[in-house]
C-alpha cells in the first residue's frame, strides 16, 4: 500500500502496463520530456524510450488515427488527449474508425486502444479546458467509457482499460488529480464495467462518477444532519452502465438523484433516470432528479461555481425527492 495522488496512481498504472506488455505504446502531445501537462506520464519516456512513449505532433485526429494503424499491427496504444475540449478534431477517427472497426471486420481486427482524457471543470481554466464530453462517446456503440474517482480505481482501471481488447475512453477527473489515497497494487479489482456502492444509505440513491463522487460523498455526510440517509453509487463505467447495481439500490431506497458536470439535455443522467424508471417504476417514491451543468457552453472561470453541481445543489435535489421544501417549492407557489 502506498499513498499516491490520483495522477500518480495513473502514472503507476501506465508504468506497470508498459512493463507487463511490450505492445503497449503511449502517444500524445507533450507526454515525453515534459511528462504531460499534468505530469501523468512523468518519467515514462526516460524509462521506456522514445519508441514506446511518443511525443506526437499537434493533431488529435492523427494521434487517434495513428493508434488505429498501430492496433492493426497488434499494438495496444494509449493516447493522451491533452484536454477534454481538444478531443473534437479526433472525434471522426474515434467514432467512425476506433468504435466500428471490430464490428466492420466481424471481429477480425481488434482495437485495444485506450484514450485518456483529463475532463471536467473546477480549476479556473480558460475555454475548452473544463468540458465533460462523455455523452458523445457513451452514445457511440463499440466504445467503452469509464471514469475513475479515486487513486485506487485510477490505478486499477487504467490497467484494465489497457488490457481490454475493446477501445476504452478513460475520463480522468482533472480537479481530483491531486487527491491522495492508498493504492494497493495487489488488490483484486472489480470488473471494469461495474459500479460500486461507496456509501450505504436507506432513503436516497445518489449516482455520481468522476469528479463529483467526492462531492456526492460530502453531500451524503451533510444530509445526515437533516436525518436523511443517502446511498452513494460511483458509476465508474459509463458504457456499459452497471444498471443492476443502481437498480438494486433504488429498489431499496425508492429515490434517485443523478449528478454530473456535463450538460443536462441528453446527458448520461437522462439515460440513468429513464432506464431506472423503466426497471423499477413501482419502487419509486418520487420522480428521479438530475443535478447537472446547465445547457450552456462551459462558462468563464468566474462563473463555473454556478455551472458546476456542488454540495448545496445536490442537497436541494435530495430535498426534492424526499418531498421536503426545496428551491422549486417557491416557483410552484407562485405558479
Amino acid at each position, binding site marked *: 500500500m502506498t499513498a499516491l495522488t490520483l495522477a500518480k496512481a495513473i502514472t503507476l498504472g501506465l508504468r506497470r502496463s508498459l512493463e507487463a506488455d511490450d505492445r503497449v505504446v503511449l502517444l500524445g502531445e507533450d507526454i515525453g520530456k515534459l511528462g504531460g501537462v499534468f505530469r501523468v506520464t512523468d518519467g515514462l519516456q526516460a524509462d521506456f524510450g522514445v519508441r514506446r512513449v511518443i511525443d506526437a505532433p499537434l493533431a488529435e485526429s*492523427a494521434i487517434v488515427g495513428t493508434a488505429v*494503424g498501430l492496433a492493426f499491427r497488434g499494438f495496444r496504444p494509449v493516447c493522451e488527449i491533452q484536454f477534454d475540449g481538444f478531443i473534437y478534431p479526433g472525434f471522426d477517427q474515434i467514432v467512425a474508425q476506433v468504435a466500428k472497426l471490430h464490428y466492420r471486420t466481424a471481429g477480425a481486427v481488434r482495437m485495444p486502444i485506450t484514450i485518456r482524457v483529463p475532463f471536467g471543470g473546477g480549476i479556473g481554466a480558460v475555454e475548452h479546458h473544463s468540458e465533460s464530453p462523455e455523452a458523445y462517446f457513451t452514445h457511440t456503440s463499440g466504445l467503452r467509457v469509464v471514469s475513475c474517482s479515486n487513486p485506487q480505481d485510477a490505478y486499477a482501471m487504467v490497467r484494465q482499460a489497457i488490457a481490454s481488447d475493446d477501445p476504452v475512453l478513460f475520463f480522468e477527473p482533472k480537479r481530483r488529480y491531486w487527491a491522495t489515497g492508498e493504492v494497493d497494487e495487489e488488490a483484486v479489482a472489480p470488473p471494469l464495467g461495474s459500479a460500486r456502492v461507496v456509501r450505504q444509505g436507506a432513503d436516497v440513491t445518489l449516482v455520481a462518477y468522476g469528479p463529483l463522487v467526492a462531492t456526492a460523498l460530502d453531500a451524503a455526510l451533510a444530509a445526515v444532519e437533516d436525518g436523511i440517509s443517502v446511498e452513494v453509487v460511483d458509476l465508474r463505467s459509463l458504457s456499459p452502465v452497471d444498471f443492476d447495481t443502481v437498480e438494486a439500490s433504488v429498489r431499496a431506497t425508492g429515490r434517485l438523484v443523478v449528478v454530473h458536470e456535463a450538460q443536462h439535455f441528453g446527458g448520461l443522467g437522462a439515460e440513468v433516470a429513464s432506464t431506472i424508471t423503466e426497471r423499477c417504476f413501482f419502487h419509486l417514491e418520487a420522480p428521479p432528479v438530475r443535478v447537472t451543468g446547465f445547457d450552456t457552453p462551459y462558462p468563464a472561470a468566474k462563473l463555473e461555481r454556478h455551472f458546476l453541481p456542488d454540495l448545496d445543489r445536490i442537497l436541494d435535489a435530495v430535498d426534492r425527492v424526499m418531498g421536503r421544501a426545496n428551491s422549486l417549492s417557491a416557483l410552484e407557489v407562485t405558479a
Partner: protein
Amino acid sequence: MLRSLDQLDPSTPMSAPGSLLQLLSPDGRRVPDPELEPWVADVDPAALAALYDDLSVIRRLDVEATALQRQGELGLWPPLLGQEAAQVGSARALRADDFVFTSYRENGVAYCRGVSIAQLLPVWRGTALSGWNPYDVGMATPAVIIGAQTLHATGYALGCAIEGVDSAAVAYFGDGATSQGDVSEAMVFAASFAAPVVFFCQNNHWAISEPVGLQATRPIADRAPAFGIPSMRVDGNDVLAVMAATRIALERARRGGGPTFIEAVTYRMGPHTTSDDPGRYVDPDEKAEWAAKDPIDRLERHLDDLGLLTDGLRRSVQRSTDAAAAELRRACLALPDPAALSVFDHVYAEPHSGLDRQRAEYSAYLDLFDGSDS
C-alpha cells in the same frame, strides 16, 4: 539503381514540373528512362502477359459488377474503369508482408492482394460491412470516410518501424482526399517519424462531380515535398511506370528512408458510383482524350510490338476474364443474407452488459414470429 534512390529528396523531385514519369507511351512504345528502367528490368514476357491478364480480368470484373448493380443484385458499385494500371502496377509491386489501407474503389488492388472474387461483393450487396479478413491478404477493409485510412497506414508503418521489420504500408486515396485534414496530418506524422509508408494518390480527376482543379491549383505531387516527403508524378495509365515508381518508394521505406508520395495521374472513365450521373458534369471531349490513353490498349500495343500478343495469349486472357465474370455472378447470387441476431455480433470483443440485454430482448421478440425472420 541506388543512385536514383538517393536522389529522391524533396529538393530534387524525380519528375520535372508538369511532366509525368512514363515507360509506355499511349501508343505502346517504350519510353527510355534510365532512372525507372532498372526497377522493372525483371518484367519479362511472362510477367508482361501476367500484367495483361490482371488488367483484363479486373476490367471485366468491374464491368460485370456494374451490370449486376443495374440488374438489382448489388446495391451499389464504384467502377474503377480506366484506373486498372494504377491499381495493378502498384499492388503487384508489393510483398505479401506489406499492408495496404485503401478507399472503396480499389477492387483491383484487392484482386491483386488475393481477395477472392466472392469476397469483393458482400459490402456492395449489403450482406456484410467487410468482405474479407484483413490479415489474410494484408489489406484493410476499405475506408469509406475519405482520407481516414492514410492515418491508419501511417500508424501501421510506425508499428513496423518500432518492431524493426522491413515491411511497409501503402495508403491508397484519391485526389479528393488530398483536401482532407487527415491526409495532411498523415504526411506530418509519417515525415516526423520517418514511417515506412507509401502515399499512393490516384488522381482520377474527379471527386464525384468536383474536378481536381477544385482540390488543388498545382500538381498534387508538389504538395508532399513541403512536408519533407519526396514525391513522384507518374503516368497512372502506364502499368510499368507505376510499378517502377512504387518499387522505388517501397525500397526507400524498407531502407529506413521514410515516406514517399506518388501521384498516379489517371482518369475515372465511369461514374463515381452506379448512383452517379457524370453526364451532368464530364466534358465528352476530355473523356475522349483519356480514352485514347487507355491502360489496357497501351499494354496490348506494346505486347503486339514485341510480338507477344499471340492467339494463345488472347485465348488465355479470354478464358480468365470469362471465368472471372462467371464466378462474380455465381458468387453474388449465392451470398446468403445474414441472420437477424448477427446484428449484435462483434460490436465488442468482450461481453457488454447493455448490449447483451438488448440481444436477449430482441431474441425474445423474434421468437413471437416462430423464428421466421431469425
